[in-house]
């Protein structure tokens, strides 16, 4: 099965969107969710989620608190903040602008 690297700069967008959709999640769930929804095509180098999550914590886009998983393990759950939600719309519009431009370029005859 071939997997594609995610385009650079979109990791925040993917995490933000994933959290926006599902509320609280821990790192493993985020990674899984991204892979599953993209039909296993988008592959996050799973570990790189964690530095990204740290940066998002600093920015105040997400908050984290410790909880227990269904399997009764301790896990850190991340949740979107208001600032995170705002950031999501910013990233979305930015992404759409870029994608739109790229699409126009490659579809031009």
């Amino acid at each position: 099965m071939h997997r594609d690297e995610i385009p650079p700069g979109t990791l925040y967008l993917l995490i933000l969107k994933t959290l926006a959709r599902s509320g609280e999640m821990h790192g493993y769930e985020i990674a899984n969710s991204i892979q599953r929804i993209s039909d296993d095509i988008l592959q996050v180098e799973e570990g790189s989620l964690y530095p990204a999550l740290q940066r998002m914590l600093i920015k105040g886009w997400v908050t984290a608190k410790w909880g227990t998983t269904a399997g009764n393990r301790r896990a850190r759950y991340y949740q979107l903040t208001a600032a995170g939600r705002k950031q999501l719309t910013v990233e979305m519009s930015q992404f759409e602008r870029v994608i739109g431009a790229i699409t126009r370029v490659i579809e031009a005859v």
Partner: protein
Amino acid sequence: MDWLRELARRLRMLMHRRQFDTDLEEEMRLHLELRQQEQIEAGMTPDNAQAAARRGFGNVTSLKEKSHIAWGWGWFEQLVQDMRYGLRMLRKSPGFTAVAVLTLALGIGANTAIFNVVHATLLQPLPTRQGNRLVVIWVNNLEQSWSRIGPTGQDYLEWKEESKSFDDLFLFEHGTGTVTGLGEPEQVAGLRVTTNFGEFFGIKPALGRTFRLEEAGSRHNFAILGYGYWQRRFGSDPSVAGRGMTLNGEEYTVIGVLPADFAALFPVDVVVPFDTDWVKRVNTDLGVFGRLKPGVALGQASGEMNVIAERIATARPLRKGFGTVLVPLEAVRVEYLRPALLVLLVAVGFVLLISCANVANLMLARSVGRQREMAIRIALGAGRLRLIRQFLAESTMLALLGGTAGALLALWSTDLLNVFVPSRIPVPNAADAVTLPGIHMSGAAVAITIVISLLTGIVFGVIPALQSLRCNVNESLKEGGRGFSIGPGGHRTRSTLVIVESALAFVLVIGAGLMIKRFWHLLDVNPGFHPDHLLTLRIKLPTDAKSSEYREPRQQAATFQRFLASVEAVPGIQSAAFAEIVPLSQDDMDMGYFVVQQDPALPPGGHLAADFRDITPNYFATMDIPLIAGRSFSEQDNLDRPRVVVIDETLARRFFPKQNPIGKHLQIPDTTRPSREIVGIVGGVHDTGFDQQPRPTIYFPSLQSPDQTMSLVLRTTLPPSAVLPAIKNAIWSVDKNQPLFAVRSMDEIISGIVSAQRLAFLLLGVFAFLALALAAIGIYGVTSYLVSERTHEIGVRIALGAQRSDVSHLVLGTGARPAGIGVIGGVVAAFALTRLLSSLLFGVSATDPLTFVVVAILLTLVALTACYIPARRAMRVDPVVALRCE
């Protein structure tokens, strides 16, 4: 505000660094284990599943680091790392650390201590409002070489009327008052002021009120207490306002207490008011302050005051030849200290530079040993900037350690300084003294110490850092275990440091040498009397009260005679006399005019000036002032007999050249008194200070010229504490309400006179000694390093037949040459810099050749001695051992 919240989050992470790391680790572990679980469930073996999970996850360590760095504390953690490493290095070489810290502590401590003095004296603001606009106004008379004398009450009133440059003028008179009824009678320091006192200085009294302007209209016996006096005599009684007290035999009402800090301006016990009539009458040495209007410059005000002075001179002939002098109050307070403190600041700066040079040298020597370490680090990819930072962290830590030790030294030295620094420094020729505040370690001084430490750390850390980075990695690694050297560049750096050190030390020692010479000159001056075993004290008869029996001059003279008879009967007193003013005491001034009768040399209306002194007959004998011609006074020279005077030889020489003054008559102008016959000539006396030549003086018999205040001089071989109770009782047996004050031995008076010079000389001496010792250590360090580095070479030379003397020449040459160059440089620098000292040197030339030669020889000897020890070691090198080491 977002950045603020972000900073708060970053800080929280910094606080919980360890927690953060374990959290991240747990989170990642969970991730890996869940992934592994999933793979196993999909049918993988556990081992394969683990490997797959790790592959998918990426480099755990690197990701952890990335997450850590994301919080932005990398630089801080590196700094902590550098400091930990530095501390370890310092602990590993305790000898080096101790020497470096001690050297720095001396340098930094000396700077902090002197800064404390500067802060306490020069930088404290006046305890008044608009202190920077206050000026002191004096009268001067250049013909009489009076540079600053106090104006009269009439001057004050006319200035106040006519001048437009000032918001307000304030008149005051220093004096003393007799307080009775509060235990032992006491003579207190008093101040009589115009009633704008409180308003002029913006005083917020600690208790009660100050005077009201309208109280100038008539005489009020109101008194404001000084804070210290209120504490001392009234036990800080909070209800003191309204209480009565007896001052000079009159009843006064206490209306308030001055704030504590006001003592920095006027250290007085009691303040009482002038009324307007009184101001018109007073013509003794008064003080006038003016508060400049906003926007009026000092020069402008001076110009206006001079115009007024000219107008006054035409209206009042006695004021002919007089002008005014305006000096900012802030400048007056510090002008006697500023030159000395500037010199000391330069001196401690030099000491600090020398300590820096020494520590830089030490670190340079050590960095040679660490060259291999540096080479390895560079080879492994350490950035040069990172290495410089490492060096600086190490040197800064040394400097901070040195700074801490220095601050402790300074703290301890402030106690010492408070003992040695006199609280009052007499101002020659002004019958006044500068009051010095207590010296203490201030917050500002602590801040300065930290700044100095950090700067020193950078200064002496950068040199070895740059030096060691210049090394060639390849060469260093190739050379193997031994035989490192810092190369010619390093030697040049170290020799330069020695040159600078020697030059700085030379300048300091020259300064101290000049001060020593000056001090010797001072102590060598013959004061004109015999100062040993003399005890002095002052007595002031209270005359204010209408009922006082002392209002009549004849009564005053008779009372002092009774005191004298009573004191002379005390056992152990060899001789006793009263004098209006004791030489060198700076207690008071009395100058006056006279003319020589039938002297054609003087233009009509002109007059001569001299110091006037009223004395009892036994004064010359008690003081051991030699009688040169004629006779001294006797008990018969009283008001019923012809008026007589005795003059001193200075006056005789100046105004009676080639004549015999005895039998000539002097006339005091503007009095109707009969003329006075000169009956004797005595030796000149240094009256105002050892710096000044004896001034023309006329002595009057006190029976013919009574005074209210007199000083008692006693010659006794007993210690003052042994005779004082008996003296007090002798005075009190005549008048039980009569206080004695200003009790001092002549030794104390003289030590006060020379205290400013002694202090400058002592401190400069200490700093010069420090500089010399540090320079010697520096030269020794460089030379002995050279010897240890060249042991092998020396061994070869000796094996090849070099004589021991050749070897010692070689070593002495390498160590002493930079020191010699330094001395030459020091001579040049000293020629330029000792001019700073000239205001402290008086009689001694700032380029005194003898001092320069002696100090040059001294420094050369010290340098040679410092080289001699390593040279001897070099001579003892055993060629066999040296070569076997190879």
